[in-house]
């Protein structure tokens, strides 16, 4: 059902991308990996993002929620530990996950717009679910600050300055609910951070993560396809080139 017009638009995009790829000559996870903490090099983005015209760079890779770069950097480090770059493929940063989370926090999800947020608030049992009065973006504010202060307590250093294994230890303490936090448990924050990271890796690229559908490609998940009626009975595993909402 993908319309013809979409196809021709796509090929124009592909053309632009490919030409900038050649002209810029800058591509590859190595470079991106080295950029932890800073913005992506616009030229590199053009090369790695299939969905953006080269002239404009990756227009949506800008923070819409975080205003303090140090806090965004903590987030970047944390999500990269949760979903690291390795021989299987890109990690959370190369996939755009920090921007995904930033944009989600700025929107209705960050404000718990469709959730029951009336008081009174009580901690609740292990089986009663989320009971914090914090909105999600507040939970991330508090949680990110706490990652840093807890790193100071435990390792006398900033979270972003720690070795990877030390960062893991900090995150594990959050996960195991060993860290005191304001307004919510550290486990609640960790679980939310983990969930948001996986969402950013695998949600449609329209949301700013899963750059170039690399998350899907690693998993052999073809994204949005109109139909599998001709393959569903196949005995063989079928590799299908993924498509995103953009191609609807």
């Amino acid at each position, binding site marked *: 059902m993908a319309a013809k017009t979409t196809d021709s638009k796509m090929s124009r995009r592909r053309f632009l991308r490919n030409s900038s790829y050649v002209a810029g000559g800058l591509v590859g996870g190595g470079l991106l990996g080295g950029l932890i903490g800073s913005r992506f090099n616009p030229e590199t983005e053009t090369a790695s993002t299939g969905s953006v015209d080269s002239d404009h760079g990756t227009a949506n890779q800008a923070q819409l929620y975080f205003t303090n770069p140090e806090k965004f950097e903590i987030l970047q480090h944390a999500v990269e530990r949760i979903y*690291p770059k390795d021989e299987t493929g890109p990690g959370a940063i190369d996939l755009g996950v920090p921007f995904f989370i930033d944009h989600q926090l700025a929107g209705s999800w960050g404000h718990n717009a469709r959730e*029951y947020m009336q008081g009174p608030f009580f901690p609740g*049992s292990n089986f009663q679910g989320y009971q914090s009065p914090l909105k999600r973006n507040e939970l991330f504010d508090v949680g990110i600050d706490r990652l840093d202060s807890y790193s100071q307590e435990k390792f006398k250093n900033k979270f972003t300055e720690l070795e990877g294994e030390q960062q*893991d230890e900090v995150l594990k303490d959050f996960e195991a609910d060993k860290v005191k936090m304001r307004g919510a448990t550290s486990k609640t924050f960790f679980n939310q951070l983990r969930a948001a990271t996986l969402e950013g890796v695998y949600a449609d690229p329209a949301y700013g993560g899963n750059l170039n559908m690399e998350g899907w490609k690693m998993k052999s998940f073809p994204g949005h396809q109109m139909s*599998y009626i001709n393959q569903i*009975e196949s005995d063989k595993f079928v590799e299908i080139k993924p498509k995103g909402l953009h191609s609807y």
Partner: protein
Amino acid sequence: MAKTLPKTDVVVVGVGWAGSIIAAELGKEGLKVVGLERGRERGLKDYSMIHDELRYGIRYELMQDLSKETLTFRNNMKERALPMRQLGSFLLGEGLGGSGVHWNGHTFRFLPYDFEIRSKTVEKYGEEKIKGLQLQDWGITYDELEPYFDKYEKAAGIGGEENPFGGKRSNPYPNPPMKETPLTKRFKDAAKTLGMKPYHMPSANMSEAYENQYGAKMAACQYCAFCERFGCEYGAKADPTVAVIPFAKNTGNFELRAHSNVTEVIHDGSKATGVKYVDVQTKEEFIQPAEIVVLTSYVMNNTRLLLSSKLGRPYNPDTGKGVIGKNYCYQILPGTTGFFDDEQFNTFMGAGALGATVDDYNGDNFDHSDVDFIHGGSISINQSGARAIQHNPVPQDTPRWGKEFKKQSIKYFTRSMNIGTQGASMPTRTNYMDLDPAYKDAYGQPLLRLTYDFSDQDKNLYNYIGKITDQIMKEMGASFINDRSPLEHYDIVPYQTTHNTGGVIMGAEKETSAVNNYLQMWDAENVFVVGASAFAHNGGYNPTGTVGALAYRAAEGILKYSKDGGALV
């Protein structure tokens, strides 16, 4: 002040499967029906961006907006119930078509045993067997309900093959079964080797293009894998907005009002005179007078509206007396994930109700003399299509994040599969619903309070059936399976199923049930309460086949009542 509107013959509260069937059947016979639906109007045209897992599968855009209304929950009567602040364990419907828009479409008929569960169990195993369970017959038999199952299956274009353990059928399924895939075949072969009788899962995804009795044309399913939690952009899933509502509107007798949240059933103690509702966009209040009031607002709100309107006898968990809020049940879900190191499967392809099932351990299809529980469940493989965010199967000792998690979850995304069970859930005295004393909804009405935990019956069923699902998975050739942790407390967070039942149960006696076998209230003859709220317990299948049948049964009762009046039973 609420504005009073002109009177109508029938007002229907909530327009999902139950409400739309009532509207179509009554409209067809010339009754004037007003349908009040708190959510928005929606249909095929609204599903053009539907293959968006984050938006629909994870953020639940098609489901209930909890900022307006939720329920509170506690495991037992000693705890303080707290609001379910985020959707989790079940995904309540909201908007035209209700959950029928985003369901999977597994469409079973409860077993003959279910409807007479108390009598049959006691007869065979003695009274001792049901100790601790608040078990009741439904006041109707399978044979009496059969014609209505048939109607619903035709309306929903169910494709399937005969269940070797099922009740007698007057007709075959209106559609052939869904396709056989390597997964369904493997399950069936393994089950047969183990001496079981597998069959293809009955499906409300159209196995072929189909036209139902309402002239609704449904397309053939494309196995697109965005089915459960999503609307079907092809009109290939039986969904009330496709299958029933266009017909209801064409009768000229059905007026749908979306964004209309009913807050009260107005009554004089023995008869209702109409309902009060608020336009959730403009906040204006209205009174809709009606000859007959039909509640089809799902288990939760069918119960809540009666309690907050003080209609019917509220259930008392201390004495077991009273009926509104009684016998809340859920679903017990033992299952097995199998990991296959040397094979890769097209797990990302599928359809909501593509699968294969065995009923050898359901109902009383096996001897319960030597087991410490009654009933059982339908065991199935369901190839509904794995999606990338939600589906991260890993071997049990894998950490939940980091390099190893990444590696394993990627590897097993296409190298694992799951066998699941829809296990029956039995009522107890202390699993029930009432009104919360503290928390309110956006319109100032008290929230429903759910008190629920798993009983020994549930835990024993879970353990026993889990061993069977392990056995089948091993026979299917899995390299290894994960251990199953025992069932402990019910947790409102992880998704389980939206198969909540009870609260306004049906039965043969006024003393112990809220509605008779036409779903007519014993305590108010012009009020009919339709849905899984009428289930006296939950059976070993997904509920909607039986909900559909009860809706047809109720429609017949309402027509009778509109002519003759009085108690129908």
